[in-house]
């Protein structure tokens, strides 16, 4: 509140007076009845006391000014300060806005929100890392919430459907589109597996820079051994003896020497897997599955063969166990079984290496004996290694392939990694 100091009428018929002197300055605190200025009229001189306690906030009539009776000389701003010295302020109180009236002035109702699924921060992060679209994942948590395990399981299931076939990396298709369902074309609806393979292929090729290096290996030693043993092996185990177990075994033993091929890429670093578990691509009715053969380095050739055979059979029958569909660190794809010589396999995300094996068959080759070259009939096959060039360079890939080739070409039954009591003569 503001209290004015008014020029008093000191004496009858006195109409004005002079401000002689201010005893207080602007900004000073004054007490009620304290003398604040001296005035003089024709009749009398007097000191004017403060009409209230507060701050002398504005002096309007300076010393020497002639002022009429009744005019305002100065303003005192009254504070509501407590005697304890806590100043509750000297400004006049402000009116707070009135309370809202219920019912009126409410803005139009907000549109009903579509029910949204809730993903926790941890789940979002995991889905991001694994490249999973959360909308595709069904939830087993409370109220159907998607949990971290759901995301992981979805990812493994998706890997099952990975098509690592020797598809070209050219994903571009023609754009001209005839009218749907016409005489010119028929629409085949997409199965879940087809859609899954499509998603995975696109993503894998988009995210990882694919390069394929190819080496040629001489399988003649293995071929002769196989010829000698295959009948007995089949009789004993009911399983055919193919080239694949030999290649799988050699790969399992050599990958630890090329750790960056047995890894996955992440922004935090190349995550090298300490164990070697090989995914074996198996063609099934409507696509591909990649069951995982765990720690094949610990198995003998025949054990590898038996396991692969079992996995393949159960894959065809759709009887693979969930844990057999995850945990792979590197994939092997024997597309040569379909007669393909060479291929450029697509990586089985999130792995950085995949070995494609072309048809192994008899070819004319140059052999050198005692310094003399000649043409001989040899069992030859191409080893096609596709790798993620973010994590693996050509030299690394090349060295791996050469080691693999040498290991296969130096096959000696019963020795080293090839030791196998079940295959002794």
């Amino acid at each position, binding site marked *: 509140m503001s209290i004015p100091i008014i020029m008093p009428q000191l004496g009858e018929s006195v109409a004005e007076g002079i401000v002689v002197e201010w005893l207080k300055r602007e900004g000073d605190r004054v007490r009620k009845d304290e003398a604040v200025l001296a005035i003089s009229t024709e009749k009398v001189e007097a000191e004017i006391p403060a009409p209230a306690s507060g701050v002398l906030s504005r002096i309007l009539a300076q010393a020497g000014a002639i002022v009429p009776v009744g005019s305002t000389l100065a303003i005192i701003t009254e504070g509501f300060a407590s005697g304890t010295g806590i100043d509750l302020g000297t400004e006049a109180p402000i009116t707070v806005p009135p309370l809202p009236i219920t019912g009126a002035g409410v803005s139009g109702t907000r549109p009903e929100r579509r029910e949204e699924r809730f993903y926790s*921060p*941890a789940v979002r992060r995991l889905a991001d890392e694994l490249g999973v679209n959360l909308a595709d994942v069904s939830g087993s948590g409370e109220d159907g919430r998607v*949990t971290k395990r759901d995301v992981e399981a979805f990812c493994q299931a998706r890997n099952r459907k990975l098509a690592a076939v020797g598809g070209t990396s050219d994903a571009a298709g023609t754009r001209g589109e005839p009218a749907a369902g016409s005489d010119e074309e028929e629409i085949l609806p997409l199965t879940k597996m087809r859609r899954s393979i499509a998603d995975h292929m696109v993503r894998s090729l988009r995210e990882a820079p694919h390069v394929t290096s190819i080496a040629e290996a001489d399988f003649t030693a293995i071929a002769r051994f196989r010829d000698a043993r295959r009948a007995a092996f089949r009789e004993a185990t009911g399983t055919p003896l193919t080239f694949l177990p030999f290649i799988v075994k050699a790969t399992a033993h050599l990958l630890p020497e090329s750790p960056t091929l047995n890894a996955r890429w992440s922004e935090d670093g190349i995550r090298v897997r300490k164990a070697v578990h090989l995914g074996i691509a198996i063609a099934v009715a409507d696509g591909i599955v990649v069951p995982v053969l765990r720690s094949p380095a610990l198995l003998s050739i025949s054990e590898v063969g038996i396991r692969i055979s079992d996995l393949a059979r159960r894959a065809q029958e759709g009887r693979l166990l969930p844990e057999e569909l995850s945990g792979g660190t590197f994939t092997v794809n024997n597309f040569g079984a379909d007669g393909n010589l060479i291929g450029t396999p697509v990586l089985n995300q999130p792995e950085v290496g995949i070995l494609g094996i072309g048809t192994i068959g008899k070819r004319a080759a140059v052999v050198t004996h005692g310094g003399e070259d000649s043409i001989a009939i040899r069992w030859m096959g191409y080893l096609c290694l596709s790798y993620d060039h973010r994590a693996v360079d050509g030299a690394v890939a090349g060295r791996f392939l050469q080691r693999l080739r040498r290991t296969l070409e130096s096959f000696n039954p019963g020795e080293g990694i090839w030791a196998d009591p079940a295959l002794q003569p």
Partner: protein
Amino acid sequence: MTEVTYIEAIRQALWEEMERDERVFLLGEDIGHYGGAFKITLGFLEKFGEDRVIDTPIAESAIVGAAAGAALMGRRPVVEMQFADFIACAFDQVVNMVAKFRYRTGTNVPLVIRAPYGGRVHGGPFHSQSPEAWFVHVPGLKVVAPSTPADAKGLLKAAIRDPDPVIYFEHKYLYRRIKGPIPAGDALLPIGKAELKREGNDLSIITYGAMLHQAFEAANRLSRKGISAAILDLRTLLPLDRDAIVSTARKTGKVVIVHEATRTAGVGAEVAAIVAEGAFDRLDGPILRVTAPDTPVPFTMPLEEAFLPNADRIAAAAERLAAY
């Protein structure tokens, strides 16, 4: 390593510190000639004398104020509150004198207030409270709450040697009911450091005091169900070990906070805020608290049982969270 009870660990800490530093002295009701309500200081008067083991009148406020005055003169007083519930009688001296003195004058007040707290002892509303949150909210104090004999000894010694005022909450239910190994020698523990007492991957139980042992029982049951629970023992409530809290929360993504004190604005609320601030992007479930309800501590057994958190309630909450 020898094994001693929780109460013996406290007694040892007091005795050893009084032998080590002649400035350390005790004040409290019934502590001298009687040896203390819980007999912790039995024998101390005979060994250390009247000047260092002072039997006081019933005057919590004066005891704390006098301890503060003596501390300003370079002494190292250890005040025994007969029950933590009675700290309320000295609350003014604690929060207005002791807590603020260093900040406003630059001179520290090195005193310790020992406060026997906690329930499950049929003590009723005035002898069973867990009032630690009152003091965790006061800047200038330190607050500790050990759960094991080793922690009890190490933290009491640290409190006595600390230049700042420390409120030492000793859980009376644990006095004679638990024992554990204590290392030889000083075995000092740092104030302000929590301890991961159990490793685990699926969720983190963050707790202190007597509830640590309920948490262990719960964790054992959980592990038989394939749920692996980490247990973080806070040990110090002020200052809280933010790094340890955030670290375990980030690792497991699921947190259950357990304390015996009542729910609203308990220390658990502060821990939950720390988790939300530091581990939000790793959280995989809501932050849960298992606490006593917002009531005074009841006396009769069925009510006190219902009031106090226990292994059953902790395990139930953890299981729900694990399945979330």
